[in-house]
């Protein structure tokens, strides 16, 4: 696990450029750095040593010197692939997974991607063909960004490295901001930065003979809703075997592997399987909160005791989120509308301080096995829409959200209205996500006139809808909702802002057994009722958990991971930068939001009753202003200094 940067095309002082770019992402790879420079292209690498500690230095070239790779991530099936390649007569100079990719590319060219089971982003410079290849893993665990300037392609694991390239500047993309304020994340390849793109998950970019092509090498697909259902007889056993193997190959490392433990089904299951494979006590890590509605400590401790793990907890107390939030935005590199990444940033710090570099997590299970409340909500909305006048059916919305007191007190009529039961269009491809998009969009009331003019005519939700695959309309509604979560929100927000970026800020590698593509493909073929049975989420996963978990962990309803939002910035969290960023002068100078409205919002959020929209707006505006300060203003200072 590491970070890399590089270029293809003419540059001045390539050594200094690469060292500067890699220096900007040194947190991703604190163990060592290396660069490779040729007349046409260059690669730089910051290494976090996990596999092949002594001989896995990068950038790495093959024996002929014609292929060179810079690689971030892990190939979990590298042992099997290496055995295959050896059987074909290939010899290896190192014990690393990096060399396996080089050999496989030499054998198969870009088709090698189909053989890789892992979380990866890499660049291979093929001097024979004068070709640069960039590739990214199927689910979008590892990041890869690029931009073109003056006929040169620059690329890097994080955008901050690209800002070191000549002529590349930081400017907020208003469309991306509107996507965040609607969908929670920019739609790839767009990023928050004008002119800087992200390589989409499961994609490969080839730059050769002056031509750039980008194409997907894998896609998430579901069976048609009217297709004959798959044989269910062995599916629980098959799932347990697949998950066990996904954990097993993710335990491969030349350093100890720990595990996050939230106290929910997913991370508990992963930890339980990992504990059985760890000769000594598995090290597990959790976040606890002062606020009872966010805290899951009791479940975490119960689970740690059940598997005999060596357990450590980072307490997220009053003021802690605000203290780290500027760093969170610096690492996330985008505005966000939730504070949830902040406790994970602190948790990764605890992991690092405990001497662990690699952690397993339960992330991905909610997308793959339909765990989110949103999936249940969409089902209830369809149920209500069949009898729009029903006074009984909307009661189910209360059952879905026991942790939202504002909703519990609503009348049946209001519940139906808030969830759009009366005006729901069942054939709308975004049916499942409309209430979320609408609630989030409420925060746009704070846009400045200038931003509204810029965005006139743009509709982020319709933009998203236009990118759906042709077969989408033939899928079961649950699978449609899962696709939207898995293909867009998961890489765009969960795996980046909450995942890779928060972990890598502390040089920690997260591994995600539920995102093993074999498991993802298996789950996609399941009968939707095996995932969401009535209103019981992740049904097949609970069955597969069997005796691995204590009953009340296995059977407990999902508690969504949440953190205090605007409340995190009151009291002890009301730090100086909050007032500076949200001051009328600052808000007016950045020009994106209405300064007087922001002042009123800040006053309102001091009361404990602020709702979803106000919270999303507060965090969204604060993070946007921090983003401006961290990138745009700093970039200007750098330009002036130069």
């Amino acid at each position, binding site marked *: 696990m590491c970070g890399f940067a590089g270029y293809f095309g003419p540059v001045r002082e390539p050594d200094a450029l690469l060292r500067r770019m890699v220096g900007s992402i040194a947190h991703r790879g604190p163990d060592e750095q290396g660069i490779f420079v040729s007349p046409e292209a260059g690669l730089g690498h910051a290494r976090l040593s996990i596999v092949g500690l002594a001989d896995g230095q990068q950038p790495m070239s093959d024996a002929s010197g014609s292929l060179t790779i810079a690689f971030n991530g892990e190939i979990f099936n590298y042992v099997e692939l290496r055995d295959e390649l050896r059987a074909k007569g290939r010899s290896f100079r190192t014990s690393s997974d990096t060399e396996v990719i080089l050999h496989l590319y030499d054998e198969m060219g870009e088709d090698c991607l189909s053989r890789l089971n892992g979380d990866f982003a890499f660049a291979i410079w093929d001097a024979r063909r004068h070709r640069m290849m960039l590739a990214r893993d199927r689910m979008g665990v590892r990041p890869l960004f690029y931009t073109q300037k003056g006929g040169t392609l620059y690329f890097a694991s994080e955008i901050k490295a690209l800002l070191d390239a000549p002529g590349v500047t930081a400017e907020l993309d208003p469309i991306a901001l509107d996507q965040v304020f609607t969908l929670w994340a920019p739609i790839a390849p767009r990023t928050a930065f004008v002119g800087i793109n992200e390589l989409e998950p499961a994609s490969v970019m080839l730059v050769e003979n002056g031509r750039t092509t980008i194409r997907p090498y894998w896609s998430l697909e579901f069976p048609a809703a009217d297709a004959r259902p798959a044989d269910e007889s062995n599916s629980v056993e098959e799932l347990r075997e697949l998950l066990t193997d996904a954990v097993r190959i993710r335990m491969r490392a030349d350093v100890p592997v720990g595990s996050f433990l939230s106290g929910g089904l997913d991370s508990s299951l992963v930890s339980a399987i990992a504990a059985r494979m760890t000769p000594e006590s598995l090290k597990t890590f959790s976040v606890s909160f002062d606020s009872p509605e966010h805290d899951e400590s009791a479940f975490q401790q119960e689970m740690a005791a059940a598997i005999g793990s060596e357990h450590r907890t980072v307490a997220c107390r009053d003021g802690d989120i605000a203290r780290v939030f500027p760093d969170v935005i610096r690492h996330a590199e985008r505005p966000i509308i939730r504070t949830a990444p902040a406790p994970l940033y602190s948790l990764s710090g605890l992991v690092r301080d405990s001497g662990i570099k690699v952690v397993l997590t339960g992330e991905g299970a909610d997308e793959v096995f339909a765990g989110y409340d949103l999936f249940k909500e969409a089902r209830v909305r369809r149920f209500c829409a069949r009898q729009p006048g029903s006074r009984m059916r909307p009661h189910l919305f209360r059952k879905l959200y026991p942790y*939202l007191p*504002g*909703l519990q*007190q*609503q*009348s049946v*009529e*209001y519940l139906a*209205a*808030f969830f759009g039961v009366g*005006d729901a269009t069942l054939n709308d491809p975004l049916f499942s996500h409309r209430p979320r998009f*609408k*609630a989030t*969009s*409420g925060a746009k*009331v*704070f846009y400045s006139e200038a931003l509204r003019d810029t965005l006139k005519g743009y509709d982020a939700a319709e933009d998203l809808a236009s990118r759906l695959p042709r077969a989408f309309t033939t899928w079961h509604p649950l699978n449609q909702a899962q696709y939207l979560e898995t293909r867009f929100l998961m890489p765009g927000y969960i795996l980046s802002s909450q995942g890779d970026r928060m972990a890598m800020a502390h040089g920690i590698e997260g591994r995600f057994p539920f995102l093993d593509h074999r498991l993802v493909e298996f789950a996609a073929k399941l009968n939707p009722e095996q995932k969401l049975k009535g209103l019981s989420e992740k049904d097949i996963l609970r069955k597969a958990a069997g005796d691995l978990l204590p009953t009340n962990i296995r059977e407990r309803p999902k508690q969504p991971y949440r953190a205090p939002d605007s409340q995190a910035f009151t009291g002890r969290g009301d730090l100086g930068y909050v007032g500076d960023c949200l001051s009328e002068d600052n808000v007016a100078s950045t020009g994106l939001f*209405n300064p*007087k*409205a*922001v002042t*009123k*919002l800040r006053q*309102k959020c001091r009361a404990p*009753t*602020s*709702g*979803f*929209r*106000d919270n999303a707006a507060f965090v969204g505006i604060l993070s946007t202003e921090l983003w401006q300060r961290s990138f745009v203003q700093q970039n200007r200072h750098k330009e002036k200094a130069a």
Partner: protein
Amino acid sequence: MTEMTKNEIRNFIVESFLFGDTASAPADDASLIENGVIDSTAVLELVAFIEERYGIAVSDADIVPANLDSVARIDAFIQSKVGAVAA
């Protein structure tokens, strides 16, 4: 009386839910929910405002969109309650 009440309701909505953005204020008969003006927390803020400003009691059964989902409906609801008290 009605126009004055409507003005007060409009002002409350603009100040509390639109943070002073008069340009986004919905028409008197436009749905506050469909236009994204209020969420579930805001409904309770609206009820508190009506009770405190007009001195009327709003029962749970009154808290339905038919009474509260537009400026015009809120106004009509208040008039009916005030009228009932006066009678």
